[in-house]
């Protein structure tokens, strides 16, 4: 009994300053500090950067990648990856245009079709990964090409325009003073954090990422969980596709090209281990915000696009190195 009380003191009874230090030195804490520094530097060099208008605009732009980065965090925590989300976004965008314009259905139905199409695309990824044991990298690399090809085939390289005015509210309008899609992103973030931290699904994701065999031998529903998250990933890519069309007012089959890399970069920058078993939504969100603000801040400071990419790449590398170093030091403590 005496040892139990002692262990309680060591385990739970940390002083407030110790807890604060723990938070500041966690993966997310460090990233957050880097993010604040970046914002400070960017806002000093250009007065247009730290304005409500500009930040709202950036909020719009990061919503699509953000929505896809959430399920991507889940997937990478299990040790998997989903390279096909950019293509699913494109396919869903085409499904909106095709169902509405070519099939002459109401736009509401077209949106539902796009969401269903995205979910189905994700479900197919998951099904083959689980049933046939294809590595996620290979499976989604194949569907990266396949879904993009499908989008091009359906659209026959024609773009669709002339959507009704109300539809643009999602991508260009505001709700309670905030960009509409930012609300969606915030709701999705809250749900994702809750699922990952509090539910059996979240626990199962970490268990699979650390040791899938052990998870299975403990009776956890490994296959079902993987199926759920790949389907969820497809659904979120579909939702991003709908928002993309609404923001862009046009449908083209090359939409979302390469966005999967932005989503993965944000997740990894946010401290989620590419080997699985470790990671958080907060980290991913900081990653998404950081990439977007850097891109924007450099652009309005007159840095050319090519140079911007170089700077972003450098910041990513520095952030990861600093973080690795600090986590290593903490572990040896």
């Amino acid at each position, binding site marked *: 009994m005496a040892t139990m009380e002692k*262990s309680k003191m060591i385990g739970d009874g940390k002083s407030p300053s110790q807890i604060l230090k723990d938070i500041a030195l966690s993966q997310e804490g460090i990233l957050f500090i880097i993010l604040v520094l970046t914002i400070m530097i960017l806002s000093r060099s250009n007065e247009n950067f730290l304005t409500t208008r500009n930040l709202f605009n950036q909020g719009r732009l990061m919503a699509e990648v953000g929505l896809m980065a959430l399920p991507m965090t889940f997937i990478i925590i299990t040790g998997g990856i989903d390279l096909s989300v950019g293509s699913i976004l494109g396919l869903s965008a085409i499904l909106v245009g095709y169902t509405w314009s070519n099939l002459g259905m109401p736009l509401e139905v077209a949106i539902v079709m796009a969401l269903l199409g995205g979910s189905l695309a994700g479900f197919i990824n998951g099904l083959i990964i689980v049933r046939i044991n294809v590595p996620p990298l290979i499976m989604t690399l194949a569907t990266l090409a396949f879904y993009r090809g499908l989008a091009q085939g359906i659209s026959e390289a024609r773009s669709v325009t002339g959507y009704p005015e109300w539809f643009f509210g999602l991508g260009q309008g505001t709700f309670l003073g905030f960009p509409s899609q930012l609300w969606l992103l915030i709701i999705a973030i809250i749900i994702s954090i809750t699922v990952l931290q*509090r539910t*059996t699904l979240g626990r*199962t994701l*970490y*268990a699979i990422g650390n040791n899938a065999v*052990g998870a299975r031998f*403990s009776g956890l529903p490994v296959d079902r969980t993987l199926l759920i998250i790949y389907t969820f990933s497809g659904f979120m890519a579909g939702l991003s596709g709908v928002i993309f069309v609404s923001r862009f007012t046009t449908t083209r089959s090359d939409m979302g090209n390469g966005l999967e890399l932005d989503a993965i970069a944000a997740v990894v920058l946010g401290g989620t281990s590419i080997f699985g078993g470790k990671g958080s939504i907060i980290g991913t969100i900081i990653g998404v915000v950081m990439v977007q603000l850097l891109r924007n801040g450099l652009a309005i400071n007159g840095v050319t696009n090519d140079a911007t990419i170089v700077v972003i790449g450098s910041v990513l590398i520095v952030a990861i190195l600093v973080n690795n170093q600090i986590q290593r030091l903490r572990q040896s403590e």
Partner: protein
Amino acid sequence: MTEPILQVTDIHKRFPGVHALKGVGFDVRPGEIHALLGENGAGKSTLIKIIAGVYNPDSGGINFGGQAVAFTNPRDAQNAGVATMYQELSLYPELTVAENIFMGHAPHRNFGLFSIVDWNTMYSQAKELLEELEIYDMDVKRQVGTLNVGNRQRVEIAKALSLNARLLIMDEPTAALTESDVESLFSTVRLLRERGVGIIYISHKLIEVFELADRVTVLRDGEYIGTKEVSETNEGELISMMVGRSIDNLFPKQEAEIGDVVLEVRNLVREPHTKNISFQVRAGEIVGLAGLVGSGRSETAQVIFGIDTAESGDIYIHGQPVKITQPAQAIEHGIAYVPEDRGTQGLIKEMTIRENVSMAVLKQVSHASFIDTDAEKNIAKQAIEQFGIRAYSTEQIANKLSGGNQQKVVVSKWLASNPLLIIMDEPTRGVDVGAKAEIHRLMSALAAERGLAILMISSELPEILGMSDRILVMRDGEIVAEFTREEATQQKIGAAMMSAESVV
């Protein structure tokens, strides 16, 4: 008396927070097999790493081949003639047998600035080395990855010979071997002894010490306890030297009241390892399942637990037929499985004790999928108290626990699921003697006091004989013999396990 090849005196080694070795000294003679015994954490690994040049001692001396030496890295030690075989073999699976043997010192021809590997010489020398070990059937051009563990070990020994090793250190070499491989390893080791190589042999298995070693040195908590001639000591003395107290009974079997049939399996088939298996386990009964490695015991257990699905046959729980295609269903029907491979199947080592202990009952500790962390903590606290798991908190990472304590976490995880039947697959493998007795006591108590039905798979015959009420023997995917506790003997079980082989 011959001069010792290795003489270690008064070695001290401290790591942050641990005084790992406190003045240890012993010696090894040429042509001697010297066993090193001790519980996990006794300092054996640290000691051999110091001898092999991996660590530097804080103080103390090493005398090798009559000279004082101070190896600063493993290469120094190797060049001087110390070869070490660690538990994880250090071979390259993609390369051939010959390439592995000559890794780092391949015979080569020089052409001015260039040198080219002399493949023919390498192959013929590799063949000669293997023949010196009386191994004639191994293709030196074969990829090491395609060999079984026993043959890989032979390659490792040949590698040590190629370096002209005068001292060979073997760290638990039989941990992953089948019984026939153990025999051939022993004869190779004896061959080396005849050649005058000094051998340090680390093992948990006392039987091996008595079968193989000439002398034995015991360590405990980093201290030197003593060195004995194997012919002048016995098992009880060695155990009490290792644990510092005498363990009066390694197999504390309690008298249990045998109740109704809990599990019945009829004509279970899953090719190729499970062919027509039928048996029963009753409440309060411990049924031992003996057999050689590869006889299909674990595979059959995993079919019952739903890891693999049966092709045909029936499983009954309390007389009711049940369908099990997934572990979750088995758990629902009250079946628990403590697997053989604790590191990957039993535990998620990177996660905390709390998360591991609640893993099989995650549904019970959550409401509408939301996990109740307090309920989890309670289960984990109970487990720590009830089973004496040595941990400072429920939030400790499982990987930081010793083997015996990890096993207790796995067992408490399954007891949390409140099972009717618990299948224990090699429950004390890789666990030291003290923890072994504790796990046996726990099993006995579960059967006798809680009326649990226990199916115990074990490759250690003393464990099978000491713990089981009834013994089943498997061979080639079938149950070939059944004995009661009274009629079973080591000879009878051994014969049943192997009789097919003796015909060939």
